[in-house]
């Protein structure tokens, strides 16, 4: 199906497609057209679950016209770099997640380390990446009561996503482990390690 184009105020457009893979394709197309100067002025290109937001557009109508009837291709997205996240699978919710999956804790770790993930988008907090790649049957609900403080480096699950808390914050994800890998570091450019398009694997440490 072709992309749905919605105005979000006077200088932004929200482009919507049907899947993560289509978002990746749309995002790639937008980044290429921006580099080619076809979008006019644009301040932000923000991918999300089913949408890409273009904010701070000089000429939203120019972009809307370009994408009228445009359809995403799937599978043509260039492969990003692979980042391995060393993880101690000792999270407070690991037993609960294993129970939801109907497997042992050890098997849950094998399932989680056995997938290849891709950063679909960042949000919630600086450098917080939403990783897709866990098969649909392993989706888990958020905790009914969010924790007031989740430590930096916590590896969690919510819905079909996996994420790593870049800094300590309140949070409602199910915590399965933690990593010492700094996913957010202001001394680095870019500060976020897990940028949209990055491929990610988790490796269990003792």
């Amino acid at each position, binding site marked *: 199906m072709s992309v749905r184009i919605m105005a979000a*105020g006077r200088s932004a457009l929200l482009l919507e497609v049907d899947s993560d893979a289509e978002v990746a394709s749309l995002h790639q197309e937008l980044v290429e057209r921006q580099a080619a100067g076809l979008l006019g002025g644009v301040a932000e290109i923000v991918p999300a679950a089913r949408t890409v937001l273009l904010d701070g557009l000089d000429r939203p109508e120019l972009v809307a016209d370009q994408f009228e009837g445009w359809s995403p291709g799937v599978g043509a997205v260039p492969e990003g770099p692979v980042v391995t996240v060393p993880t101690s699978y000792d999270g407070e919710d690991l037993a609960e997640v294993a129970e939801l999956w109907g497997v042992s804790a050890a098997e849950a770790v094998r399932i989680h380390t056995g997938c290849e993930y891709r950063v679909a988008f*960042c949000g919630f907090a600086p450098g917080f990446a939403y990783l897709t790649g866990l098969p649909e049957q392993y989706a888990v609900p958020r905790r009914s009561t969010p924790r007031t403080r989740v430590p930096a480096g916590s590896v969690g699950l919510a819905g079909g996503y996996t994420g790593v808390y870049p800094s300590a914050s309140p949070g409602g994800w199910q915590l399965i482990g933690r990593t010492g890998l700094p996913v957010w570091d*202001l001394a680095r450019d870019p500060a*976020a390690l897990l940028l949209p398009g990055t491929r990610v694997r988790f490796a269990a440490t003792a």
Partner: protein
Amino acid sequence: MRAVEVVRPGPLTTLQDAGRVGVAALGVPRAGALDPEAHRLANRLVGNAPEAAVLEATLGGVALRALEPLLAAVVGAPAPVRVDGRAAAWGAPVRVPAGAVLAVGAPTGGLRCYLAVAGGFTVPPVLGSRSTDLLAGLGPPRLAVGQLLPVGLPTGPPCWIDPLPLPAPPGELLLRLDLGPRADWFVPTAPRTLDRGRWTVSPASNRVGLRLLGPAFERLPDRGELPSEGMVLGAVQVPPDGQPVVFLADHPTTGGYPVLGVVPAADLTAAAQAAPGTPVRFTRSNR
């Protein structure tokens, strides 16, 4: 190092400039002065570039000691300005001798005072901005007693004008609204609620959003949950309780509640100065 010393930080004073641009895809909010007109004006009065960092003093109350002669200006919410206890001008450049204390009182209307010094506050920028973002934990921390704030060298001539007339506090906040992108997530009577409803500014409002109390916007029951999507400044997000939140500068970059419409940026200056209890109305704009 040129610097001023914080004598009183006030209830909530932060450094703000034009905010962070181009990093929303990393999950970094824009931040920046909530009242951009006051930010620019404060800088113009003391001869700074328009984007120089200033103090945004919510509910005023800030006092600074000049460690050397200083030129400053206070605009935004009207408030008493004093230099070593003597009344000084609001809305015009003010000379502060070395050792003297520049104090801003509580606003007589509005919420947020903007204090610029010639040369600007030159704390180190983070991701291209000197703005404090309390939610995201970026930029300088909120002001604290005894803190030294670095000040740059003046870059241009001040604007010696008669003090500006004091703005009247808004009796009512009238916000234009461009419907969408998710207006179709609400019941068909939502536009009528929008046209006829009367809200007030909630005391829970902050730099993230202007929270409104009043008639609830009801969602269509069959829509389920909205997958997270990018959010813009001025977005009117409607959480499950139906009470709208108008996103201000510290808004999260993505959100999972539907956006009924977007308030044009020009109307957010008044929103930044609307105290809790201020009546609010929406008008659907015909662009």
